């Protein structure tokens, strides 16, 4: 349909309802819980590796990405081709008919009886009038801005870079140093690793982040040994299992500047240690 103008309609919300699916998923996690509890009871010797659950919380892109110059040109070409191949719509046919009728009326030998029944001596709303009304309404509509006016370089806001997905990083004390990590906590007996990850997310100070976890299976794994002075008889190091989650609510709480960061995939190397980064990069998709 080739309309003379196109109404731009782009709502920036999207609703993801996974409530019913979550119920199904919770069934799985309860059976898993029993399995893991059984396992722990029967294990006589505890392993020397401490288990941690971590969450890879992503804020999905809210706006589509900008087109490259080639893509722009191609899009214009396709639009042009579609316009040239299309047929006239009802509205456009009405416009043409009205224009023809007006021109017939202006002629000297105009006989109003020759006009069709419907259009004789009646005040009709012409298609042109309708078009003008619609144009007025369009001018009143203001779409939301693509850039929210937030400093793009500052990593503390979750509103930056709306066209790309961002990952949450947290600064944490590990041993003696402060490191940027994905949020993680130690696993406790009797809970599943996914519950550990949920706890890690909930226990972040000062942030009220509602997230939807995508499945029970971990997406990544990182193993590290404690430095020599920390190694005791029972503990050699720790194993961290990462779970993926998607941010579902946007509470714009002011997060502390120095402890939280929302980063893109290419900015990760500025924050994470090389070994850690190598494992984390494997499961983060930059689409």
């Amino acid at each position, binding site marked *: 349909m080739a309309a003379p103008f196109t109404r731009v309609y782009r709502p*920036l919300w999207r609703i993801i309802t996974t409530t019913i699916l979550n119920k199904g998923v919770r069934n799985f996690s309860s059976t898993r819980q029993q399995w893991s509890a059984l396992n722990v009871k029967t294990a006589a010797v505890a392993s020397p590796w401490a288990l941690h659950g971590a969450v890879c919380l992503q804020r999905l892109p809210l706006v589509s990405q900008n087109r490259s110059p080639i893509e722009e040109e191609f899009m214009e070409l396709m639009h042009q081709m579609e316009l040239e191949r299309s047929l006239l719509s009802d509205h456009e046919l009405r416009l043409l008919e009205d224009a023809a009728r007006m021109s017939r009326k202006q002629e000297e030998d105009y006989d109003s009886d020759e006009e069709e029944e419907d259009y004789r001596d009646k005040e009709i709303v012409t298609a042109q009038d309708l078009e003008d009304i619609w144009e007025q309404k369009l001018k009143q509509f203001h779409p939301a801005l693509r850039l929210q006016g937030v400093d793009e370089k500052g990593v503390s806001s979750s509103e930056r870079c709306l066209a790309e997905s961002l990952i949450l990083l947290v600064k944490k004390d590990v041993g003696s140093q402060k490191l940027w990590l994905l949020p993680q906590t130690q696993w406790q007996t009797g809970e599943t690793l996914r519950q550990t990850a949920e706890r890690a997310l909930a226990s972040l100070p000062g942030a009220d982040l509602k997230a939807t976890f995508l499945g029970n*299976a971990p997406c990544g794994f990182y193993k590290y040994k404690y430095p020599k002075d920390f190694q005791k008889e029972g503990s050699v190091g720790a194993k961290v299992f990462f779970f993926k989650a998607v941010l579902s609510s946007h509470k714009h709480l002011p997060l502390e500047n120095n402890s939280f960061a929302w980063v893109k995939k290419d900015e990760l190397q500025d924050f994470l240690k090389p070994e850690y980064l190598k494992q984390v990069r494997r499961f983060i998709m930059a689409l």
Partner: protein
Amino acid sequence: MRLIGHLCQICQKEERIIILRLQWYLLVLLLQNTRALVCAASSLQSQVLTTQMPLGVLLTNRHYRSMPTHGIGKYRHLLPKALPKKKKERVQAKQIKAATATEFGVFNVCVSGYDMTLVEHYSQYIHNLCNHLDIRVDESCALPTKSTEVMVMQEQGTKMYVDAVLKTHERIVQISEMKATLFPIFMEVILKNQPEGVRLCLKQHTEADYQARFKTRPELEGLLAKINN
């Protein structure tokens, strides 16, 4: 004496020729008979299965089946096999598979929105992604379009008039037996590629969903009610 000897020689020669000729005729007859017998035997086999023919017919000296041009006009064996027409069976409700510990059951990915091209392209994208990742897609169908009328209140007055008609299009991709380990990756890909203006919804497939696609038959229901009452 020589003349008689010659004559005798000639006689012997002729005898030999005659003997040879006779032998030749015998051979030909024998061959013809055997060929006829072979044809008769094969025709016997086929004919015993089909009809009862009197023996006198088999023993005739008809040569048409032994002619090299026998069956020259046959074409039925070259045409494709025309199967008997199958009557359309009633669509049976498929058994909804339950979820196991490692696999999801049957669930629907519903894509809906106002812009039909976006909705269709996104559902096609999901279907192609499933094909690429070897995820089983049971069905990929459309639900009926729902029209929403946007009514605007007039500035001076209480009457409402129709401002616009919005059509909601919906497409469903039904997936079964998806591995639980693959699910987070799949979800992430489709969430990251979701276009603006398109709503995504994942639901477990139930019998009610399946029945909702069918049209109601009011006359049938009326008759059933009458029978019951």
